């Protein structure tokens, strides 16, 4: 039994195509096994919002009656899921205000909510998928790492499907939890990539030929210049990383003990008197 959580990020265009691909993927996932469950979360600059299952439906009974009379004979669960996602995203779009030109998103918060949702609903192996179109937000590093470690502890795999630019944070997340990271070369084929790479669950993946793991850059960035360094100095109190030795840590303001060379007392030499 596996449970997927999706996250969708706002793209500048092709939002409807992206949603179409996600809905196809969601339907296939629900159709694979009866016990599969689905949750879809949209994450944008101010908040993250559960698109499906939606609170406003109150359990989905009311909507099911409306939709059960679909003309094309679609499985009701899939029809309900599609219509809920479409309605909720319209809701979110109309409520969200675009403040300035920010393209960052609050990924860590969405992942945290998804983790809690997964844990309360099922206790077995779970997968989480992230579809990303915006850039990383550096402020989120610590919270993001906390979320990744919590997922790793609970054996939840995080997969990432990146549309625009590479994301170092997501690469680390996939590497640490054991999921797949893929940067899509052609956005139009999003549905194909989703179905091919991300639909099979972890046991089946070992038998498929999938894209090779990306090279993850685990070098740390120094706190003073934000450069990636290979050898650095770490403060033993607050674990902040510096590229050069300095007598005081700028984060926690501890003075460090400096190893001074040993002072050698000059020995008094007896001067030889000239004969």
């Amino acid at each position, binding site marked *: 039994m596996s449970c997927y959580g999706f996250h969708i990020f706002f793209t500048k265009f092709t939002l409807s195509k992206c949603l179409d691909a996600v809905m196809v993927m969601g339907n296939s996932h629900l159709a694979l096994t009866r016990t599969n469950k689905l949750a879809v979360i949209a994450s944008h600059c*101010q*908040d*993250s919002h*559960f698109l499906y*299952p939606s*609170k406003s439906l109150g359990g989905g009974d009311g909507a099911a009656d409306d939709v059960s009379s679909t003309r094309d004979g679609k499985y009701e669960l899939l029809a309900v899921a599609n219509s809920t996602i479409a309605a909720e995203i319209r809701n979110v779009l109309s409520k969200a205000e675009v403040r300035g030109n920010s393209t960052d998103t*609050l990924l*860590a*918060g969405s992942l*945290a*909510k998804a*983790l*809690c*949702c997964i*844990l*309360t*609903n099922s206790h077995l192996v779970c997968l989480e998928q992230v579809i990303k179109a915006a850039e990383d937000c550096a*402020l*989120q*590093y*610590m*919270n993001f*790492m*906390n*979320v*990744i*470690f*919590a997922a790793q*502890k*609970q054996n939840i795999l995080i997969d990432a499907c990146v549309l625009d630019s590479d994301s170092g944070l997501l690469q*680390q997340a996939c590497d*640490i939890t054991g999921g797949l990271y893929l940067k899509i070369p052609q956005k139009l084929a999003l549905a194909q990539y989703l179905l091919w790479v991300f639909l099979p669950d972890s046991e089946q993946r070992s038998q498929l030929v999938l894209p*090779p*793991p990306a*090279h*993850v*850059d*685990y*070098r*740390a*960035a120094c706190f003073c210049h934000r450069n990636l*360094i*290979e*050898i*650095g*100095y*770490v*403060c*033993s*109190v607050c*674990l902040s*990383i*510096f590229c050069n*030795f*300095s007598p005081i*840590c700028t984060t926690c303001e*501890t*003075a*460090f*003990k400096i190893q001074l060379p040993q002072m050698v007392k000059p020995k008094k030499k007896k001067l030889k008197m000239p004969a």
Partner: protein
Amino acid sequence: MDEEPERAKRWEGGYERTWEVLKEDESGSLKATVEEILFQSKRRRVIESHGQVRLGMMRHLFVVVDCSRSMEDQDLKPNRLTSTLKLLEGFVDEYFDQNPISQVGVITTKNKRAEKLTDLAGNPKKHISALKKAVDSACVGEPSLYNALSLAVQTLKHMPGHTSREVLIILSSLTTCDPANIYDLVKTLKCLKVRVSVIGLSAEVRVCTVLTRETGGSYHVILDESHFKELLMLHVKPPPASSSSECSLIRMGFPQHAVASAMERDARPSFSMSHLDSGAGPGLSLGGYFCPQCHAKYSELPVECKVCGLTLVSAPHLARSFHHLFPLQPFVESPVEELQGSRFCEACQGELKDKSAFVCPSCRSVFCVECDLFIHDSLHCCPCCIHSRAAL
């Protein structure tokens, strides 16, 4: 010399009337009481964090396991030794999860002697395989606290000043056989700033009480196996650093993981330095971590480079310890009836079924019992607070 704090012993207290806990309501059913008991078992005590106290993040811990005759006792199933070693495997895993740049060593004591099972190392696999093999060893004789502690101190006293030096003793015997005066050793331990804690499996022993009180550790005696596990897990969190520990800048390397496939022309297989330790024999492998200073190859991190002595870690290892530095404040418990607004948990979107919910003091979002437990144990950040852009 010793000022014993006034503390009533258990037999000096009054009777515990455990039958009074169960109360019937008007119709004679115990449902409310049973629900209350279940709810309390779901909520564990959230250990109060110390707040703005410096913690010892780089820890050197020696675990001393008593392998004397009394460990064959069967009050812990199947016997005390097997149960202890099994719990220690879980402890080692959890310890390296919470303190990735720390080290652990295991010492056993039996037959009035002590010997090192594993040396101080940062790799959990070695310790776990050694613990698994030790299950078959025989338990004979009496333990020796003095010998075990002096063996631990021999290694710990050479450790640098900014690390915390700790010893955790699991003692089941009520006796100890020492070649010299143990109170002198206690004074030496105090000078060397070694913190000794004891978990007793039988009963309280006075020499352990003095030992832990003088060195600043904790002493507990277990009630049953789940209590034993709880007490062990108390030692996973980094302890507050002593005021005299030095703070220094430690030079560390952050190697890149070179992943090369056999298809590339430049890929050259090479030997990994970690095979010098294991008896598996040298193996050629294509990828690995190369030390930035001397380019020796290692297969996993964290490790101390054998060639140049540089400590090699990766950035996520340091990031694992950040939540100790910024602990999450405990949430306020409030009854569900008093909450305005929807009765949904903000994190998992489920309905609030229990009679009380937890409210985050800073963002006032409501969480259910399971989410609160998960947030404080594993997540260490409130899912709604991190939505505000002002938060780090």
